[in-house]
C-alpha cells in the first residue's frame, strides 16, 4: 500500500521521568501507554470517550487517553494512575477508596481515582454537586456510585491534613 505512515518518536514526561516512545502518529495514547510504556493502569472500557476508564492527566488536564493520538502527546507531561501514589504512600483519594469500599471489579477505578484527584487539585473543597459533575464522565457498573462519592467526599476532608496531590 502506498503512503504508509512511519512510526514517530514521542518524547514526553511520564510520571516524572523523561521517556521516548515509538508509535504510529495516530496510535491511541492509551495503547502506547499500555503496550510501549508497560503502564496497564489505564483501562479500555468503551473506546469512544464515554466511560473514562482510560483517563490520564495530560499537561495537568484530565483526558480520555483513547481519544488522544500519540503525536499530540509529543512534549507533554503525562500522569497515569501509576504516578498518583508517592512510593508506598497512597494519595488521600486512593486511601479513601479503600476505606469506603469505592472499588469492586476495578476496571473504572484508575480513571475514577484520577478524575477525583484532578478535581480536588482544581477544587480542594469541592461540593457534592461539583464532585458529581467532576466524575460524570466516569462510569461504574458495580458500585452504584454511592461509595465512590463517599470516598471522594471523605478525601476532600482528608486533603486538608495530607500532602497536596
Amino acid at each position, binding site marked *: *500500500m502506498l*503512503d*504508509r*505512515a512511519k512510526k514517530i518518536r514521542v518524547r514526553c514526561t511520564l510520571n516524572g521521568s523523561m521517556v521516548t516512545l515509538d508509535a*504510529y*502518529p*495516530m*496510535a*491511541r495514547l492509551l495503547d502506547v501507554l499500555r503496550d510501549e510504556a508497560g503502564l496497564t493502569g489505564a483501562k479500555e472500557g468503551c*473506546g*469512544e*470517550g*464515554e466511560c*473514562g476508564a482510560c*483517563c490520564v492527566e495530560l499537561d495537568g*488536564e*484530565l*483526558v*480520555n487517553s*483513547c*481519544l*488522544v*493520538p500519540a*503525536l*499530540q502527546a*509529543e512534549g507533554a507531561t503525562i500522569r497515569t494512575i501509576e504516578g498518583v501514589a508517592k512510593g508506598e504512600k497512597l494519595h488521600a483519594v486512593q486511601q479513601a477508596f479503600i476505606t469506603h469500599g469505592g472499588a469492586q471489579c476495578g476496571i473504572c477505578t484508575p480513571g475514577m481515582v484520577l*478524575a477525583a484527584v*484532578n*478535581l480536588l487539585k482544581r477544587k480542594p473543597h469541592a461540593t457534592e454537586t461539583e464532585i458529581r*459533575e*467532576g466524575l*460524570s*464522565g*466516569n462510569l461504574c457498573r458495580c458500585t452504584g456510585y454511592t461509595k465512590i462519592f463517599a470516598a471522594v467526599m471523605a478525601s476532600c476532608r482528608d486533603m486538608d491534613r495530607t500532602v497536596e496531590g
Partner: protein
Amino acid sequence: MRASLPSYELIAPENLGPALEMLAQAPGVWKPFAGGTDLMVLLEAGKLPHRKFVSIWKLPELRRIEVSPESLAIGALSTYTEIQRNEILQCEFPLLCRAASETGGIATQNRGTLGGNIANASPAADSPPALLVYDAQIELISAKGTRRLPYRDFHTGYKKIQMRDDELIWRIHLSRALKQRKEYYRKVGTRRAQAISKICFAAAASVEKGRINDVKIALGSVAPTVLRATETEKTLYGEKLSSALLKSAQAILVREISPIDDMRSTAVYRRRVAQNLLAEFFDAMSS
C-alpha cells in the same frame, strides 16, 4: 473493525502559516484534526475514511479568546473547559457556557473545541444553538486570506458547511451589544450527563413590561442542521406574553422543525418536547 494505524498520517506544523500551506497545496488531501474527540471515535470504529490529517491542536493562533469593548473573538481551538473558565463569556454569554458544560464529561471538555463542534456539523451539537441565538459570525482563514460570514448561513445541509478544503475556522465573533436579556438553554437527553441530545433548545429575549421586544430561538436535533426558528420568532416579536401567544407560537414551531425517528428518539417525542421547551422559555421570559 479497528483501523490499520500505518495507513493514517498525522502531521503537526508548528504554526498556522505552514498548516494553511499544507491545506492549500493539495486541497482535500489533508484535513484538519483538532482535539480528536470526534475523529478518534471514528478511527477506533474503523469508520474514518480519510487518511491524511494535519494536527492543528497546538496552533497558538487559533487558541486565544480576544476581548474588545464591542465584541469577543473566540479562537476555534478554545476548548469547552476554556469557554467555561472565561469570565466575560460566563457573564455575557451564559448559553454558550451552559452548552460547553453539558458537552460530555470533564475529559471531553478538556479536548473538544468550539471550532471542532462547528466543523463536525452534527445537527445534535450542543454549542451551535447558543451561537445561533447570539448571532455569531464565523471567520475562516486560508493561505489566500480570511473571510467572515454569519454563522446562521454556515450550515447548508446535513453535515454540509460553507467551508473550502483549504480553509480552517479561525475564530467565532460574538457581539457584546446585546445585554440584559432573558436567556434559556435546555438539552434533553437520555440522562443528564454525557448524553447526546434528543433535542436542544436555546433562546434569548428582551422583554419589557410583558412585551417581547427581541427574541431569538435555536434548536438542535430537530432538523438536518441546527436551526434558527425564525418563523416562531416572528410570531413572538412585539407581542405581549400570553397563553394564547404561546399556543400559536407552539403551532408555528412544530411546523418549522422537521425531526426524524433515530436511535436516540422519535419525531413525535421531539415535536412534543420542542413545544414544551417553548413553554418553559415563556416561563423564563415571564419571570
